């Protein structure tokens, strides 16, 4: 009888030890996913590991903070206040975005321009009341589009913009947000995380099992499921294309990427541009500007700055142009050409 009790006891102990180990391991690879609507888009955040709950919660708060600061739709946002007052003493985030935007404007020879906002409004992309503006209206609004007319004093952090100018960080804000969220993950010692902010993907580390993240690139074509899949770690993958936001009038489709030089939706034979690099802010800004540039200019731009990023271009014939830095980690069933530096 005594023997029997001993046995029962040892089975009990074994079970408790097993369950404890199990729960411990579970906590280590636990993952937390949060979804939210912010910045006029849908976002998904996933983090793995011990502090994932706290990290994702902090990330959501950061996104909401930046949304409140940068939204053109809110009367109270810093962006709206500067656009209304035409001057202001800038917050750290606004000042950083302004500096990066001015750099990108220079770097891309004006293809990236945060002052294109009056045209976004005229086309109805700001308030979703879509319309085709007249040629004279576009021409007159184009005179307000010029980043060089923004005067920003780095020592006092003061900005002054021309009377008719409007600034919108829409082409860079989500990328900046994903960079900031990645920093929060680092602060919480998260080794593995991924966020998708309305199609802008940013990864932190590798997947929890140590393998690379596999990111599919959306195809604008109904008969092609995906342009391909790229395997990455610690990088942002950001795609710009005319299929994201658009409207149709008299059988013509008008999309939301406006060329700051013509005031018209970009129409140059490219259907999407994907940028792959560590810095989400730059990836976001470049995806828009290279889409504006068109294939030939985008390729020469990459050749001049190949250390900064890699890219995948897709043209109207559904042919891909892939830069050599990612040729090993990109797989596709479509026709493609590798772009080499030399």
């Amino acid at each position, binding site marked *: 009888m005594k023997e029997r009790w001993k046995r029962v006891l040892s089975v009990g102990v074994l079970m408790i030890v097993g369950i404890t180990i199990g729960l411990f391991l579970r906590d280590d690879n636990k993952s937390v996913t949060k979804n939210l609507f912010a910045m006029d888009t849908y976002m998904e955040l996933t983090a793995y590991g011990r502090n994932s709950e706290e990290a994702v919660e902090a990330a959501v708060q950061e996104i909401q903070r930046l949304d409140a600061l940068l939204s053109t739709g809110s009367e109270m946002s810093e962006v709206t206040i500067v656009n209304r007052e035409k001057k202001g003493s800038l917050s750290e985030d606004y000042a950083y975005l302004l500096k990066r935007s001015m750099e990108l404007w220079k770097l891309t020879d004006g293809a990236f321009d945060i002052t294109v906002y009056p045209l976004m409004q005229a086309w109805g992309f700001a308030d979703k009341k879509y319309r085709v503006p007249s040629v004279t209206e576009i021409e007159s609004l184009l005179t307000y589009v010029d980043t060089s007319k923004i005067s920003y004093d780095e020592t006092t952090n003061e900005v002054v913009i021309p009377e008719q100018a409007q600034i919108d960080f829409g082409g860079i804000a989500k990328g900046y947000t994903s960079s900031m969220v990645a920093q929060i993950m680092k602060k919480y010692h998260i080794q593995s995380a991924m966020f*998708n902010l309305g199609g802008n993907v940013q990864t932190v580390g590798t997947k929890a099992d140590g393998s690379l*993240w596999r*990111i599919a690139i*959306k195809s604008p074509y109904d008969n092609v499921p995906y342009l391909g899949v790229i395997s990455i770690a610690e990088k942002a993958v950001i795609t710009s294309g005319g299929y994201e936001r658009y409207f149709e009038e008299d059988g013509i489709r008008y999309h939301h990427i406006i060329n700051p030089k013509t005031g018209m939706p970009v129409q140059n034979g490219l259907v999407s541009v994907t940028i792959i690099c560590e810095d989400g802010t730059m990836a976001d800004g470049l995806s828009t500007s290279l889409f504006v540039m068109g294939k030939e200019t985008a390729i020469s731009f990459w050749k001049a700055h190949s250390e900064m990023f890699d890219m995948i271009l897709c043209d109207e014939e559904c042919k891909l142009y892939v830069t050599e830095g990612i040729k090993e980690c990109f797989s596709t069933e479509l026709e493609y050409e590798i772009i080499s530096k030399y």
Partner: protein
Amino acid sequence: MFKKKDVTLIIAVLILAGLIAAFLRIYSGETGETVRIMIDGNEYGSYPLGEDSVIEIGNAFGYNRIVIENGEVFMQEADCPDQYCVEHKAISKTNETIVCLPHKLVVELHVQNREDDFDSIAQ
């Protein structure tokens, strides 16, 4: 020291623990082919991808009709202004989503791991 019976018992206990763990994993919804509908960040419901069905949702945001058919999901109808969700092609792979932004509605797919899976979609 250990008798044969003890060893048998230990193995039996471990197998039992393994089965319980496996059950918990399945129960936690990590595997299996499910269509999950989220509204404003909260789960509205989960539906098996293998069973054809029509899900109609009408709430303060608006009306959406989601159809599950032959292992695919698509938005058949919605009264949102932009209609991007209705124009979205049918989804059938894990981590694919259809988003109806004006109605804060998301249809997500969670399918068991396959060769051609991916973790997210850049768009």
